[in-house]
């Protein structure tokens, strides 16, 4: 295996590569240094901030409506799958702390075809995920309007679409022109959200356990403790666990990557899993399946109202707005890294990663993220968007695990991760099987859309980048 990427794409552009020295504080190239500016807190904020928007504020109603209290098991299953993938991802990220995350590992471990499919579906997966967060945000904005006394009688759904599109345009513009420190803002929002949620969950658990003794308010007889519905719900809510991969996409900017990357990825998965399980337990104890189904995306608001009155509803609405916003924003940030990663390797045209002279922002990449996001957000297809996002991520996760096995079997000279998954290849193999298996439990429509995306990216490889060689290169 050579350590240099080679070949050119259809336009004659070759992958850019050079020898760099990675230190804990910076990446040092021949002529310049790239400062690593995100600490452990910043990494956790990206991971948790991306995830809790979906898992806590959007899914409890939808998942509870499917299987009732058994949804706790769905969240545990999803969390375990996420953890099984987070471990191999951590090992690869400490060995290759570069922009692009999963794309980078897979293109180096498995070659250009797999790399192209994953790199482009990481971008599109993030697009679907962002659209999903925006729709969630739209629902919360509608509830916020209702709380301040503005109720929309005619076609509230249409209003959600409009709100989602407006927020989508707003975020894209903000990212295009904003030079403020988005990351610092993200840290603050996540800290605020976590403290609100911990207080809310502590109160909720206390209340529910007391209530359970006296009178079961949610009908437990409706819970569906059966393997198939639990697993298909797990496949649906897996979108709540996509955030740790976003940490990997900014791996090039994390300080002390050998320590902070594994901690941020594994830590954020563990933290959100615990919070999700508690949330869904409270949600399904307060209301039964039919009630949750009627409340839909913003069921949490009704739960807040039931537990704490109007104040509780208000807290949840504010939390939901902040959380879905931070999810959407963090996803847009990592989309620009994902596009940059593939464009540097000549899998997309080089102009896709141009930087705007006036604002210093990657305007083409942000446009490639924001444009489709807005279109998808207008569809308001929460479940479809969530599942397609999960589908595309799960393909990447499965391939990350395969890439780890491949790289370990045939270790290149430069491969020297600071974090190694314990127990040999077993965890990676189980992680790969679990990731691919979860896809099988999705809605057929989602699988179809996801498969079409994969097919299209494969076609792109054969048309555009079949002569580029990346396997084994650093």
């Amino acid at each position, binding site marked *: 295996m050579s350590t240099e990427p080679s070949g050119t794409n259809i336009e004659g552009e070759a992958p850019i590569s050079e020898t760099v020295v990675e230190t804990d504080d910076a990446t040092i190239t021949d002529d310049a240094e790239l400062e690593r500016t995100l600490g452990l807190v910043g990494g956790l904020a990206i991971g948790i901030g991306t995830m809790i928007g979906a898992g806590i504020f959007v899914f409890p109603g939808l998942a509870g409506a499917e299987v009732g209290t058994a949804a706790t098991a769905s969240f545990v299953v999803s969390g375990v799958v996420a953890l099984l993938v987070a471990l191999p991802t951590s090992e690869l990220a400490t060995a290759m702390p570069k922009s692009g995350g999963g794309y980078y590992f897979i293109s180096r471990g498995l070659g250009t075809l797999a790399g192209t499919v994953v790199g482009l579906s990481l971008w599109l997966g993030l697009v679907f995920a962002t659209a999903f967060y925006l729709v969630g945000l739209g629902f919360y904005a509608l509830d916020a309007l209702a709380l301040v006394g503005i109720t929309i009688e005619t076609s509230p759904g249409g209003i959600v679409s409009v709100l989602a599109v407006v927020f989508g345009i707003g975020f894209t513009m903000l990212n295009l022109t904003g030079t403020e420190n988005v990351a610092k803002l993200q840290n603050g929002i996540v800290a605020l959200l976590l403290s609100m949620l911990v207080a809310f969950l502590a109160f909720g658990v206390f209340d529910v356990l007391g209530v359970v003794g006296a009178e079961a308010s949610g009908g437990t007889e409706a819970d569906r403790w059966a393997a198939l519905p639990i697993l298909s719900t797990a496949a649906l809510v897996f979108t709540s666990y996509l955030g740790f991969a976003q940490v990997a996409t900014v791996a090039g900017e994390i300080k002390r990557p050998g320590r902070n990357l594994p901690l941020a990825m594994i830590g954020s998965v563990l933290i959100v899993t615990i919070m999700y399980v508690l949330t869904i337990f409270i949600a399904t104890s307060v209301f039964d399946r039919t009630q949750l189904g009627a409340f839909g995306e913003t069921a949490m608001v009704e739960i807040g109202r039931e537990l704490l009155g109007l104040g509780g509803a208000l807290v949840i609405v504010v939390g939901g707005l902040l959380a879905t916003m931070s999810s959407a924003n963090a996803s847009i940030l990592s989309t620009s890294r994902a596009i940059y990663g593939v464009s540097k390797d000549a899998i997309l045209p080089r102009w896709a990663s*141009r*930087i705007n002279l006036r604002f210093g922002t990657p305007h083409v990449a942000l446009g490639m993220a924001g444009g489709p996001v807005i279109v998808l957000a207008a569809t308001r297809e929460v479940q479809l968007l969530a599942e397609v996002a999960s589908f595309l991520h799960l393909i990447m996760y499965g391939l990350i695990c395969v890439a780890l096995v491949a790289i370990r079997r045939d270790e290149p000279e430069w491969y020297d991760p600071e974090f190694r998954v314990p127990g040999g290849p077993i965890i990676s193999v189980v992680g790969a099987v679990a990731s691919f298996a979860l896809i099988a439990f999705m809605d057929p429509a989602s699988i179809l859309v996801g498969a079409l995306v994969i097919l299209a990216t494969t076609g792109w490889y054969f048309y555009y980048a079949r002569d580029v060689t990346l396997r084994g290169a650093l």
Partner: protein
Amino acid sequence: MTRVLVPVAVLEGETVSPGLMKLLGTVDVTVLGYHVLPDQTPPDQARLQYEDRATDALEDLTEEFRMAGGAADHRLVFTHDREQSIDRIANEIEARALAISGVTGDVEQLLVPLSGDVAVERILPFVEDLVGDRDIGVTLFLATKKEEANTERLDTAAEDLRSSGIRVRTTAVVGSSPFAALIDEVPGHDVIVMGERAPSFRSLVFGEESERVAAESVGPVLVVRYDEGPDE
């Protein structure tokens, strides 16, 4: 050897005034070209696009510093956090001072405030090295809040500098705001040399004192570092 770090926002067209270059002719200089990026932009992406242009500009600047007398080299960094990059590189090269560039012509008189809790024992040797055997005068400045405060610190420091052949003037001022008093003293001086303070609550709220001095005085400020990093 005394080394001074000169951070320059190289892609925004920031340069170093000829007066400051000449003043730094007696010491070694590292020019730090930096470019601050918004969080949306991966630093590596900016590097690919701007590296060549930035390196060209830095090489020119470095050459000018060499012509002015001292040894000079340069570093280029793409970052989301300017302070973090400056601190890291200052530690790595063990810089004794940082330059905040500003406008000045030929330097004839330095203003050296010794007010407050600053490391006089670090500032004076730096001033000595900087002035060398050139005909540059030094004004030692002390602002105190109380009338009876002793000016002993001022006198010892003046004696110290005179013994190495430097022309020294001393000014002691009593007033409620040492900062305002210092700014009032600026006319007639070309460059301010001041000690870095340990980070404090005030500096969090109002920004670094040296940055505020630089903004108010328009001229360049040399900040003698508080901590040179691990064992000097």
